[in-house]
């Protein structure tokens, strides 16, 4: 073992260290694909707002039934309240992956997450 270690020069160690660090860092960096980076809010199919998923913001959109409240936090977004009868879009909770969408159909409002790498075209529950 010692005779092998002797063959590694100081710069080699440095390179291995830097390379190892870069490789270790590349795993989470490349594999968290699918996480969204923008929340797109639409009313009647028209984009009302595009909010970066880095910010913390609350937004009210007025539809035919009343106000739909949307909250954006770093990395996720949700419909907080909606005048619709069944509350599907509210119960969907936090959305964080690119392609996820919450549709408040009665109030004509939707909240979609978009991202650079989308793992899915569309996700709804």
């Amino acid at each position: 073992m010692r005779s092998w270690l002797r063959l590694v020069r100081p710069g080699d160690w440095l390179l291995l260290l830097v390379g190892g660090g870069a490789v270790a860092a590349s795993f989470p960096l490349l594999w968290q694909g699918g996480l969204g980076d923008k929340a797109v809010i639409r009313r009647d199919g028209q984009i009302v707002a595009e909010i970066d998923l880095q910010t913390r913001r609350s937004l009210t959109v007025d539809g035919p039934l009343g106000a739909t409240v949307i909250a954006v936090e770093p990395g996720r977004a949700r419909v907080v309240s909606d005048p619709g009868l069944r509350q599907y879009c509210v119960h969907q909770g936090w959305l964080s992956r690119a392609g996820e969408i919450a549709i408040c159909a009665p109030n004509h409002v939707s909240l979609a997450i978009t991202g650079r790498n989308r793992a899915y075209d569309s996700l709804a529950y």
Partner: protein
Amino acid sequence: MTRSPIELTLTEEDHRIARMAAAAVGLSLLDAAIPTPLPGVKPGLANIVTLLVLARYGWNAAAWVTGLRVVAGSLLLGQFLAPGFFLSLTGAVLSLGVLALAKKLPARAFGPVSWSVLAALAHIAGQLLLARLWLIPHDGVFLLAPIFAATALFFGTINGLIVARLLDEPPASS
């Protein structure tokens, strides 16, 4: 006896390159015979020869040996002009390019281990790039990059150590 119209004068260097290329082809066949969990993940044993030639006889000889190895190796494996051939050609060209630069690093600090790791990383980078541009035109291929890079680092280190060990020994008198 008819005289041959073409006289090929073979220098000592031609013989040496042919010998080294033959060794490299043998090792790349061995490489292909080792089962791997993922295409593209392999030890790259033939690079040991490339690096030895680089250290002893310079970059030109190393480029010759690598070129011959890629062509002859793919002929023997039945892969000539198949996608695998272009992948290995791209990898070889890129790693030779990187080796030309790596050879200029100060020898006190950077040895065969550095060359080997850099060449292995360049090799896999070239292959991924070609795969992205040509074979699988989707960014999804880059999801494999961390695995390939980790493999390159691992086998690059081992091959580099082998090269350093071989260079350490006195050259055999042949």
